[in-house]
Every structure is written in C-alpha cells, then in structure tokens.
C-alpha cells in the first residue's frame, strides 16, 4: 500500500525528467551545428554524460552537487510548505536575497567576534529577515486578500532594489574598489566535508526531516494542510486560517532566508553589489518535482543541484551552454504541469485526492479573498 503510493508519486516526476531529457536532446541536436559545426547526433549523449560525470563523477563533484542542492532544498521547502497551505510562494527569491543581505550585514558587524557567536547571530538575522519578508505577503493575504502570487513577485523586485541600496549605500565596505559588503570574517561557515562542503548543507539536510515531521506528524502540520485543502473547514474546525497563512508564509520566508545565509556565509563570504542567484525560481521547480513533499524535495533538490553542478562540465566538455539547464528545467515543469492533470483526470481510478493540493493555487487568484 505505502510502497504503491510512493511509487505512484515518483512515477510522474521520473517520467517528466526522462521526457525533458529527450526534448533537451532534440534541442541540442537541432542546435548542434552551432556547437560542433555540423549536425551532431551524439552531442546530447556527450552533453549528458558530461553532466552526469560533473555531478557524480568525483568526490568533489558529488560534494559540489550537495552544496548546490542545499539552498535549492531550502528554497524548495519554502515553496512547498506554502503549497501545503494553498499558497504559491513565488517570493523565495526575494526572501533569499533579504536573508542573504541580513547575514552579510550582521556577519560583517561580527567579523571579529568568536565564531560560534558570529555564525549564530548572523544566521539568526537571516532567519528573521527572511521571515519578515515572508510575513508581509502572508499578512496582506490574510487581512486584505491581496493574492500572494502578485505580491511576492512584486516583493522580489523590491528586494533587488533594497539590496542594491544597502550594498551601494550604508553597507558598502570602505576601501573596497567596487561596491560590496565587508567580509563576514568569523561568521564564515566552517567546511565540514571535502573541499567546500560547508555547514550550510546541514541546514538543508536537517530541515527536510523537521519539515516532514511538522507537516505530517504534528497538529501544526495538520492545521497547515487543512487550511490548504479547505480553509472553510479549517475555520469550522476551530483553526485560524488567517494566522496559519501568515505563519506559513513566515516560515517559508525563514527557510528561504536561511538559504541566503548559507550562500553568503558558506560560499562568498560577503555580498557584492548586483549579487544574483537562481535559487528562488529553482525552488519552484524543486517543489513541483518533489510534489510538495519534503522527502520528494530532498531528491528534487539533489537532482537540480546535480544539474547545476554538472552543467559546467557539460559546457566545458561538450560545448553545450549552461542555459540548457534552464531549458531542461522548464520542460520538466511543462510535463509535470500537464501530467498533474492527466492524473487528475484518472484520479477516480487511481489513488484519489492525492494531487489536488497544487490545484488550489491559481483557482483562488480571481477571488482575492481573505482566508
């Protein structure tokens, strides 16, 4: 029973990945004259082989995959916990950025403090900043009905401007030749494994079981899921959909903010002006790929992390530009979106009501009502 359910959950994402690889191959072959000068039928194989060996071929590659995956897992959780409550958090990107800038700012301030203090407080700052940034759309949804999709898109762009203001203004490091924040010094995360397997990967690995446990084994998770599945029934059952929406968005922001802290404290060590990232949008893919289930997200995050980690080798060895990853990602999503409904149609015969969670999101768009 349980095995069958898991299998049925996994089949469609796997199918989507395979189909996406096929479509990707067609695109690569079609564009191969631009890469190798002639129509090259084996180019996709070379490209994919390089992708795989880049991601899994060496210990360092493997660690890089995990390092790339960890912010994606956190962002994936940030999106999917929203899904559980019937919310589409497109704002992981913005929440990531404010979390990152908060970690950079506080880290810089504590650059000479004892490492545990510096790290702890910087991360705390990122959590708080991300949480506040998630709270805003949650609050707006709960009390004004403004749909979170629009508000979070807008907040993403506001975050970019806000960060630009901070880094080129109050946070700008003195003496630096170009605009960046000061180094975080002591707040830099220690490397635990391999060359660059920093402490941040633990955040992601720990967040997954916690999220799973909270969602499926506690009354809090039950409330979140109930609000997502039927907010009226939740109210009837004595829950407060408003506060659950706010709390959920806050937690989503917190997770995305944590991802931002991991990137700044674990990888760059400071925040440059014009800092850019794909994490927020990759998070959406991860959430859908993982079917909004924390365990699924772990794998979805690893898969996308592997693609991001291996893509360089794909470009180096096969000459296929890294943008191919975005294409693949989009095609995976395309098939997931299409299959979601194919399954929905067959739902009556298969396990019913497994997929409906994601269906609620855009339905509410026209209503703009408070929960």
């Amino acid at each position, binding site marked *: 029973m349980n095995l069958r359910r898991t299998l049925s959950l996994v089949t469609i994402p796997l199918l989507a990945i395979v189909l996406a690889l096929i479509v990707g191959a067609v695109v690569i072959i079609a564009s191969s004259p631009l890469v190798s000068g002639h129509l090259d039928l084996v180019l996709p194989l070379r490209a994919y082989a390089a992708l795989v060996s880049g991601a899994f071929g060496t210990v360092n590659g493997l660690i890089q995959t995990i390092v790339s995956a960890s912010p994606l897992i956190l962002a994936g959780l940030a999106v999917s916990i929203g899904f559980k409550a019937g919310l589409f958090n497109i704002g992981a990107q913005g929440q990531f950025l404010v979390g990152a800038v908060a970690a950079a700012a506080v880290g810089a301030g504590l650059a000479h403090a004892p490492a545990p203090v510096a790290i702890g407080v910087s991360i705390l700052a990122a959590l708080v900043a991300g949480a506040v940034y998630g709270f805003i759309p949650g609050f707006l949804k709960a009390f004004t009905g403004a749909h979170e999709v629009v508000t979070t898109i807008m907040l993403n762009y506001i975050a970019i401007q806000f960060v630009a203001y901070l880094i080129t203004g109050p946070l700008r490091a003195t003496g630096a030749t170009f605009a960046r924040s000061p180094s975080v010094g002591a707040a830099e995360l220690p490397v635990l494994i391999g060359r660059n397997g920093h402490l941040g990967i633990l955040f992601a690995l720990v967040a997954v079981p916690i999220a799973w446990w909270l969602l499926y084994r*506690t009354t809090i998770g039950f409330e979140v899921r109930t609000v997502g599945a*039927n907010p009226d029934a939740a109210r*009837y059952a*004595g829950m407060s959909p408003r506060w659950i929406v706010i709390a959920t968005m806050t937690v989503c922001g917190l997770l995305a903010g944590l991802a931002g802290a991991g990137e700044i404290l674990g990888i760059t060590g400071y925040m440059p002006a014009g800092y850019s990232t794909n994490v927020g949008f990759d998070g959406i893919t991860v959430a859908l790929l993982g079917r909004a289930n924390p365990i699924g997200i772990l794998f979805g995050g690893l898969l996308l992390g592997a693609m991001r980690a291996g893509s360089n080798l794909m470009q180096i060895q096969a000459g296929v530009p890294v943008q191919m990853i975005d294409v693949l990602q989009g095609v995976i999503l395309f098939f997931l979106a299409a299959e979601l409904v194919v399954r929905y149609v067959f739902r*009556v015969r298969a396990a*019913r*009501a497994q997929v409906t969670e994601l269906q609620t999101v855009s339905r509410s768009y026209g209503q703009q009502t408070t929960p």
Partner: protein
Amino acid sequence: MTEPTAPLEQHGPPPALEMRGITKRYPGVLANDGIDLQVHPGEIHALLGENGAGKTTLMNILYGLATPDAGQILLDGEPVSISSPSDAIRRGISMVHQHFMLVPVLSVADNILLGEEPMAGPVFLDRRSAYGRLRDLATFFGWEIDLDAPVGTLSVGWQQRVEILKAVYRNAQILVLDEPTAVLTPQETREIFTMLRRLTTEGYSIIFISHKLYEVLEIANRITVIRRGRVVGERLPSQTDEEDLAQLMVGREVQLTVDRGTSHPGEPRLVVDDLYARDDRGHEVVHGVSLEVRAGEVLGIAGVAGNGQDELVEALVGLRRPSAGRVQLDGHDVTGAGPRDLHQRGMAFVPADRHRFGLVLSYPLTDNLVLTDYFRPPYARGIMRDEDAIRVQAGKAVEQYDIRTPSVDVAAATLSGGNQQKVIVARELDRDLRLLVLDQPTRGLDVGSIEFIHRQAIAKRDAGTAILLVSAELDEVLELSDRIGVMYRGRLVALMDARSATREAVGLLMATGGSQPQKTDTGAA
C-alpha cells in the same frame, strides 16, 4: 402499480419534446437509466423526484451540458442531437438553472442579451433596439425593472425573473425550470406560477422540476416521477394526490411526519440577546435577533434562504463575529467566541454545506473524523499526533454510525452524500452535548439518510441536548421542532409553539414577515 402508459396523444400532434431511453453514467453512479419523457405543446410538465434522482442530469442532457451515453431526443417528432447549449438554444430550448446563471457584474440587460446579442453591424452591440423589446417583455409580465442595474445588486426573486426574461427573450418553445421555487417565498412562488400559466397560453411548453409535491400538484398539467435514474410513473394531477406521488418518489410507504414524541424542555441553554451580524460584503443582515433554546427541545428556524439565517448560524457557532448583541451558553457569555471555544463548551454544529465546511474532501475518513478534535488527547499529545488513537476512533465511528466505506483510509470525496453526512454526524454527535446546531442537515440526501439523521437528532433531544435547527425546508422544520421561529429580512419575526403552527401561517410569515410593521421583535419566548 405503474399503469401501462396509455398516453392520450395518439391522434394529436407529435410531442413538442420526446426523450427516449436516456442513459447517463457518471463514475460510480448511474444517473439516468433509460429515461423516457414526453412533453406536449402548451403543457406544464412536472418532473418530480428526490434530490439526486437524476432530474438535473436529464435536463443537462437536454440542454447540451452533458452528453448521454445512450438515448435519443426528438423535437416535434424529429430526432435531434444537442451537443451544446447553443444547439439547445437554437432549437428553442431554454433553461432556468437551479443555481442562477447570471453574471453578477453585468447589467440586467446585458445578462439577458448575452449570447443572443442584437447587433449593429458585425462588431458592435445594438443595445438601444433591444431595450425597447426588453421593456415590452417586462410590461407583459407587469414588472418594473431597471435594465441597467448590475444583476449582483438584485434580490433573488428579481434574479429569478431576469432568468425567466432571458428564456422568453430567446423565444424558447420549451422552457425548463430547475427547482425555480427553492429560494422563493410562497408569495413569490405564486407570482411565478401565474406567469408560467400565462406563458403556456402563449404556446410555451414548460418542464417544471421540483421535489415539492404540493407545488407540482398545483401547477402541473402532467407529472413524471423519477427515482434513482428511472421513470417510475406518470400521472395527471387530477388522478393523484400527495400520498401517491410521495410513494412513487420515495419508493415505499413513507410517513410524511416523523413521530417526534414529546419533549421535556429544561433550563435555557442558549440565550441570544439582540444579536446583529453583517455579511461578507459588510451589509447588516441580522438585525437584533433574540431567542433561547432550552435543554431537551428543538427550536426550528424557518425562512426563505437568504434572509440572514446563514449569518445568524455562523454568528452563533463562532464562524462570524456578531456586530452587536450577546450570546450566552449555559450562562456563560460566549459572544464572539471561536468555534473551538464553543466546541469545548459542548456545542456541536452540523453545517449546511458539508463540502465547504464539514469535510476536507481530500482527507481520509480518519482525519475527517477528528477534524474538530485533532488537537487534544487521545488524538494528540502536545503537538504530536497519535495516529493509532485516530484510527481506533475512526473504526469505531464507521461501525457505530453505519458509514459505508471500503476502509477508513479512503478520501471523504469517494463517499456518497449520505455517508459523508454520516461522517459529520458521527464526529459531531459522538459525545455529550449541551447544544446542537443543525443547519439544513438533510439537504440533498436520500430519504434513508434523512430519517437516520432525524432520528439521531431526536435521540439527542431526548437525552437533554438543546437543538437549534435551521432549515429552508419548511416541512423539515414543521416535523422536527417543538417551537418554531421565522426569519424574515434578518429579523426573527415570529416565535410560536409547533403545535399551533400551520404550514400556511408559517409560509405567510416567511413571505411577508407578518402583516404588522416589524420594528421590534415579536415573542422572545
């Protein structure tokens, strides 16, 4: 018992509409099973059946909203295929749906014209020319109607008229009315009836769908009764009576009134004092309602839907904050208390819309059965859920309340309406209650389930629970209540002993709110 159909039309013109052997299967349900129906020109043909008997499905097929799996439709003797509403409209069929098919933001005129727009040239509408015709139609029925008012601002009664104008505007030959009186007062109903009779003199054939026997007897020229997707009889009103029709409709001898025994009212449990509440748009729709429900009695609130009952109930069960007034439960002030607080004080609530409030359809029965209790022992310790305890409880409930389900792990969505309602009843009634609020508890259920639920309610009453029953089904209120109140335009306009209440008297109150101007509320116990 069903007399061999020896219809009277061998020599006359062919029926305006004939449906032959219509069969429609939905997953798990045989909605129509070889239905035959004949409607003659100029007649009002009633289609009688319980909720879920397949009336609406049959009409959706006629109107091109659903495709039959088998069967044939003939118009004036010619076989036709109707694959979409536009087909139906083109062939002179119009339908007034149970749930109004009006676009709230569009004006009355635009709603009527939509789909049959008068055009000035290929692109632009010619509203002006249409207005004249619409005014004529309104005058024909003797109505004053503001054609530019957005439909969303009209009362239900007026929306119903707009729906009928829509059909008439389309020059329909066959007019289908799906439960047109469900939301109307008896007086409005009478007006509609007058209008329908007028239409038949203009040559319309009308199919009138209802499950109310007396209405059908009053208006129809002929009655076809369906049960469980099959035609079980055809009658002329002159040759039948309520008993006969009820038997056909339900399939066995039914006792139209439940023996509710005698009640032994005790101390007041719920005391409501001058309560006000607003609807979602901020309009005050409950004006100063006062009432009390005593232990061991059923207080029934009758009223046409949309007279503030929903908001009143929601205000009482904690889903809506009253804007003024006071609510006491067992002597404690619970004004503005949330659902959980009230639940813990011994209140239970069976909501009218079980899909919206009562259940999470995607959840298994286990979770649905603890929906209001999930947070407390034995189902949870702290924030940890105890899955085992939840399963044990679910197994018990399924057995005790005879919920027909393959397992406690299937989603609630897979159950029939009756079984879904049993899940709610099992959850809500399975403990010692001080107060039970039943809001339209049997809407859309089969007779078996209705009886089951009524019996459960009476049992609770006899065990000393105070029961507040709110229903738009006057019959249900009359059958179950010890005392009856009537809601009209947000006020409780009457409160009477059930023994002295007659269907006519209550109906009049529902329709008019009583003859005397209602400044203050009559009879608060």
